């Protein structure tokens, strides 16, 4: 298992690549040097802190409840990130949280309910991370698209409302379009996987010396987990947000362009 540890010296050596990036930024006057240094330092501090905490959670003596608490914390953090990235809809946090909880219940329920992976801190934490990280991106996309579709097609939505359609029907084609866009990205990357890039989990397993077939099986299960998670979060956020953009008496609220 020599390949699994690069040690502090190895990590320090990889900084040479940062120097390459900084050099290029300077040569081409991209003005990104400060930004890059900040990103590199921040990533290091964040991941080292996470690693430290993760070490405690993964310790065989630590009860698995701490792993679930970790997932819960990720749910909150991801929801908070979604809210920050969709400033055009104020107060999105509860809905984003609901989407994450739905994703966790559905995806982790299937993964552990069917016994695909054994329940342990070593499975709960990374699978929860994969699931939430990907669905968070899709949640942001669907939220922005729902707002954009309903805003840009306000004429059509109001024409439908004026025909006596309830908001659910009046918004359906536009919300559906937003949900398609948000889910398509994940479907596309599921199709392209392996041909264009080796996904992270598989790369990690292969580096760790796991047999390629085993690595592929794990990776596929994770891809399907992500697909299910993305679809779930898109549905909850898409429909939940559409509901919030209409008044109880079926009027479309004023929608502004993002700040």
């Amino acid at each position, binding site marked *: 298992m020599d390949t699994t540890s690069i040690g502090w010296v190895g990590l320090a050596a990889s900084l040479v690549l940062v120097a390459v990036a900084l050099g290029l930024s300077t040569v081409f006057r991209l003005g990104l040097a400060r930004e890059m240094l900040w990103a590199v330092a921040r990533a290091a501090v964040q991941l080292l802190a996470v690693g430290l905490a993760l070490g405690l959670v993964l310790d065989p003596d630590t009860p698995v409840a701490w792993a679930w608490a970790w997932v819960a914390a990720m749910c909150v953090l991801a929801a908070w990130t979604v809210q920050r990235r969709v400033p055009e809809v104020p107060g999105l946090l509860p809905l984003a949280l609901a989407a994450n909880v739905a994703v966790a219940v559905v995806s982790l329920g299937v993964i552990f309910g069917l016994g695909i992976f054994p329940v342990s801190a070593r499975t709960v934490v990374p699978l929860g991370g994969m699931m939430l990280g990907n669905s968070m991106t899709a949640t942001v996309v669907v939220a922005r698209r729902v707002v954009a579709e309903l805003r840009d097609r306000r*004429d059509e939505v109001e*024409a439908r409302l*004026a025909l*006596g*359609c309830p908001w659910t029907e009046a918004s359906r*084609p536009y919300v559906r379009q937003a949900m398609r866009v948000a889910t398509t990205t994940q479907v596309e990357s599921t199709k392209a996987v392996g041909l264009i890039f080796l996904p992270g989990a598989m790369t990690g397993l292969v580096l760790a010396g796991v047999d390629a077939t085993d690595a592929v099986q794990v990776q596929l299960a994770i891809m399907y987990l992500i697909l299910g998670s993305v679809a779930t979060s898109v549905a909850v956020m898409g429909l939940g947000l559409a509901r919030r953009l209409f008044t109880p008496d079926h*009027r479309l609220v004023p929608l502004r362009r993002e700040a």
Partner: protein
Amino acid sequence: MDRSACQTAGVSSGDAAHSFRFEGVSLDRTGSDGGVLRVLDDVSTEWSLGGPQCVVGPSGSGKSTLLRLCNRLDVPTGGRVLFDGEDVATLDPLVLRRRVGMVFQRVTLFAGTVAANFAVARPDVTAEEGAAALRRVDLPSNLLDRPAGELSGGEGQRVCLARTLLTDPEVVLMDEVTSSLDTASRHEIEHLAHDLTHQGIGVVWVTHDLAQAQRLASSITVVRSGKVLDDDDARRYLRQATAHGTGTDHDWHHDQPGEGG
């Protein structure tokens, strides 16, 4: 004052005529800069829809908003709107919007065929009903299977009207429906609006085209800067606006200032 042809038409549906009544209606909108804009300011007026009721005024005067209050696409910040004596705020908006239909300035056809557009108004619409709806707006029934995107502006707007009529409305609100159309289509739709009032369907017609209002209306309301002008001011406004003499018979009279508010 002379009595126009449309007034005569209105008389036939006499006491059964539908009415809208605005009582001290105000509407404030928050602008994109966060400032509050008073779109309508203490409007009190009444429309009795025996014949076409026109609402004229410069763009941005609040006349479209006045219309949108009638089917609750907007709700007033203050005051109330009565339809046939009932406060629209107490009516189920989904029922109200089928009783009070609306056709918009922009031709808003949905994706799909004309028949698919009709199905939004009435999901169980049959081919015969669809064809009848098209005949009602003087369009051939073979248009039913045409993609809505292929229609001309005039055809499209007439399909929008036919779509609205499929909900069996008692009143149709028309918001600048001919402003993007050519002269022939414009007259065609004016003619259709007339027919509707003959059939006992109330018509409220918003336009910035004064000549059109005077051709069409049995009654004209003038809106300026969020206020409905009273009798004398409205007369003065219309006289000034038509000072260049666009026609000979300006047979309009307009509603009395609201007696309730």
